[in-house]
């Protein structure tokens, strides 16, 4: 059971994702048949699958969603943004529930209430559709109790079969206060054939009962047409569902067909019967085929839940058409020859070729081992060279080269295991843009490019949040309202482009809009007003640097904090997240024609490229990502004001810090360094977010790819270090986190 449950959670997540995508496509192009079908299938499968577990609110919600979609599919209801909103809300709710199910195994306590609210919204829509368009058969789905009517009730209805109008009325609990008398409404229903009044929830004992609260639910069948019945409920459209149903011949109604595999009258039996009905529906060959696959899945899942697992292939064969399925359900599975069974079991084990799910910890362990292996392999080269000349050396060299190649391949393969397409972080964007644009009354076209670009899973995790923020920001502050756009001669709809591509060992994502751009003058003013910069410092900034101020902590250009972007994550948070992952953010903006933000990230977090530097006899690593250059600076060019030193590099005045001093090591001057001291310092130019810093070191060594190990244990609290790493020759280095160190 629990395995089935896990499977449901995974499947539900996939289905909800599919449904979200289809709904977006459908809203864009309401005539998109394939999307309607896909959406309908997703809801239908969710309904079937959720019915296996005790989660009535979930089932109810997707059920009503399915009803609404069936109206849509049959063209009896058009797609509107409002309807899309409601369906999106339903999908969101389901997603939250699935998350809760995954965490706690149960729906939250308020699920029934939440479902009820959403169902009202949706069924309000479908009742409208029903009243407007007139119902046809096929609506039986919406009134499952009709199919479940027992024999005597059927007699009461007074006809064995035919088209009836079903009424499902759940009065608002407070309806007595507004003067409603639900029962009285049924007096006005023409040709009322059958009426059942039941408590919608268990009635409390009389002593605790509020006599002014309506707890009843009304279900009825009428022989009159939907249009004739609807007027009776004109005052309560949001509380009633009306639709026409076809009462199948009672001799062999689908649900009454003996289903040997489930207890008669049970939900499972009804669902199994329903599956056969689905196979009867008309459709193209492709539709039928996909339907039969879905039915086979549902039947197999239902049977498993009933404790009667049946081999998949047997079920699939039985689901070829409705007749076969009914026979199969009535007679039970064909008896397997005992000798045949192991073979069948094997077939089952082999058949599901689903994606392999691996615990991330195991992947990380593998990655770490591969990293270590590369490092250890690196030590073989120097060893071989020490052996000297001779046949043995030649063999060892050949061996070492083969090992080199293999380790390289292994590392590549292991890296690839962790690579995922950026589509994963792009997926939420269409929905975000749609909702946000709708809320802001802007028209925005989202162009996604390079979703197939791959990057390490860790990088994707880092990328997700900043990307959402950039997109939100562009919609909120970048792209102007349609009137303003029209006034400046732009098309009323804005374009937001998110473009990902691979770039020398890293992955780049650009978010660009054709909006108002950023005004450097306004940036300067704001910076001064907020006390971030002195007026003369602000005036001295180049336009590009002024625009870059958006990344400064505590900066927000919009006059007011909107509920969209003002969520406490400013652009500085975007910068911090990206830089923490060893990446960079750049921004370019042209006032009046748009802004482009570019995020560059390394391909993987597991292997970091560092510049090895020396200070006071120890080796340290500085991540290449922050290194803007390395050069020797003559002592004479270093200007000192008291202890604060600075140097002019590339026409910029850059503060200079000494690594020895930062690390609390003795000053270089204190020891004897060659004849007459040094005339020049080795300087690493570090590009940190708030400006460049020159770091003076004793010496600069090679660049090396290392596996960065975060500090652990008591060292964890140590600030200023990103971690430790082992160099190719086995020496241990500390990798610096300059941002924290400064």
């Amino acid at each position, binding site marked *: 059971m629990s395995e089935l449950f896990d499977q449901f959670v995974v499947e539900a997540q996939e289905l909800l994702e599919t449904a979200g995508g289809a709904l977006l496509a459908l809203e864009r192009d309401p005539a998109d048949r394939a999307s309607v079908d896909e959406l309908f299938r997703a809801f239908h499968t969710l309904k079937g699958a959720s019915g296996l577990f005790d989660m009535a609110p979930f089932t109810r919600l997707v059920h009503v969603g399915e009803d609404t979609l069936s109206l849509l599919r049959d063209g009896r209801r058009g797609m509107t943004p409002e309807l899309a909103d409601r369906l999106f809300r339903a999908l969101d709710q389901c997603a939250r529930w699935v998350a809760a199910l995954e965490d706690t195994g149960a729906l939250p306590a308020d699920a029934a209430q939440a479902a009820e609210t959403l169902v009202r919204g949706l069924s309000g829509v479908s009742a409208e559709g029903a009243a407007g368009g007139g119902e046809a058969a096929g609506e039986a789905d919406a009134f499952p109790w009709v199919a479940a009517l027992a024999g005597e009730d059927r007699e009461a209805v007074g006809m064995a079969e035919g088209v009836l109008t079903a009424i499902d009325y759940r009065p608002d609990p407070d309806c007595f206060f507004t003067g409603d008398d639900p029962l009285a409404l049924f007096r006005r229903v023409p040709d009322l054939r059958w009426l059942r009044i039941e408590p919608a929830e268990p009635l409390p004992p009389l002593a605790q009962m509020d*006599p002014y609260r309506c707890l009843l639910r009304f279900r009825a069948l009428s022989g009159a047409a939907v249009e004739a019945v609807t007027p009776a409920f004109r005052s309560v459209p949001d509380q009633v569902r009306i639709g026409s149903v076809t009462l199948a011949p009672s001799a062999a109604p689908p649900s009454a067909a003996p289903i040997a595999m489930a207890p008669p009258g049970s939900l499972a039996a009804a669902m199994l019967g329903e599956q056969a009905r689905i196979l009867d529906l008309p459709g193209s060959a492709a539709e039928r085929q996909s339907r039969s696959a879905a039915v086979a899945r549902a039947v197999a899942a239902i049977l498993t839940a009933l404790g009667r697992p049946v081999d998949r292939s047997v079920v699939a064969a039985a689901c070829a058409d409705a007749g076969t399925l009914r026979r199969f359900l009535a007679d039970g599975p064909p008896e397997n020859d005992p000798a045949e069974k192991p073979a069948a079991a094997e077939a089952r084990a082999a058949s599901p070729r689903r994606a392999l799910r691996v615990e991330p910890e195991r992947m990380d362990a593998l990655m770490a081992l591969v990293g270590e292996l590369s490092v250890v392999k690196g030590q073989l080269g120097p060893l071989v060279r020490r052996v000297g000349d001779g046949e043995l050396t030649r063999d060892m060299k050949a061996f070492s080269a083969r090992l080199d190649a293999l380790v390289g391949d292994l590392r590549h393969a292991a890296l690839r295991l962790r690579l995922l397409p950026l589509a994963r972080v792009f997926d939420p964007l269409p929905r975000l843009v749609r909702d946000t644009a709708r809320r802001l009354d802007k028209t925005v076209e989202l162009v996604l490019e390079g979703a197939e670009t791959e990057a390490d899973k860790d990088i994707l995790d880092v990328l997700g949040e900043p990307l959402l923020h950039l997109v939100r920001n562009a919609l909120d502050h970048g792209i102007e309202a349609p009137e303003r756009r029209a006034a400046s001669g732009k098309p009323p709809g804005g374009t937001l482009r998110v473009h990902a591509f691979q770039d020398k060992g890293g992955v780049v994502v650009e978010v660009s809009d054709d909006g108002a751009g950023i005004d450097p003058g306004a940036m300067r003013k704001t910076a001064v007003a907020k006390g971030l910069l002195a007026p003369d410092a602000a005036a001295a900034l180049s336009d590009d640097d002024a625009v870059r101020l958006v990344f400064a902590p505590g900066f927000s250009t919009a006059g007011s904090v909107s509920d969209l972007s003002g969520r406490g994550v400013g652009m500085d948070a975007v910068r911090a997240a990206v830089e923490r992952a060893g990446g960079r953010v750049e921004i370019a903006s042209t006032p009046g024609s748009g802004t482009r933000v570019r995020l560059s990230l390394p391909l993987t977090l597991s292997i970091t490229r560092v510049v090895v530097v020396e200070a006071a006899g120890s080796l340290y690593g500085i991540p290449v990502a922050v290194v803007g250059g390395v050069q020797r600076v003559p002592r004479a060019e270093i200007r000192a004001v008291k202890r604060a030193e600075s140097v002019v590099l590339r026409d910029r005045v850059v503060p200079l810090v000494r690594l020895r001093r930062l690390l609390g090591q003795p000053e270089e001057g204190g020891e004897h360094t060659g004849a007459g001291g040094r005339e020049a310092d080795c300087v690493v130019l570090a590009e940190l977010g708030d400006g460049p810093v020159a770091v003076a070191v004793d010496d600069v060594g090679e660049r090396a790819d290392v596996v960065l190990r975060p500090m652990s244990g008591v060292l964890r609290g140590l600030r200023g270090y990103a971690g430790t790493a082992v160099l190719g020759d086995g020496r241990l280095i500390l990798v610096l986190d300059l941002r924290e160190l400064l």
Partner: protein
Amino acid sequence: MPIRYDADLARFEAACTVEDALPLAEWLEATAAARVDLSACTDLHTALLQLLLAGRPTVTAGPEDAFLARVISLPPASGP
């Protein structure tokens, strides 16, 4: 007063409205073996129906009103 209470028997007469709900609830709660006579009832408010469903009194006489007869024929204990 459309509902007349007579020891353990309540007689519903003519159109019984939502105003009768509270007295009926109190009476049902206070009366051990409550019985109701619906024969003269021409209209029954949903609130009253709900109380009858919850309190399950014995129906000594079902309503003569055709519509109500269909509704009341189902409830508890003994049918009409």
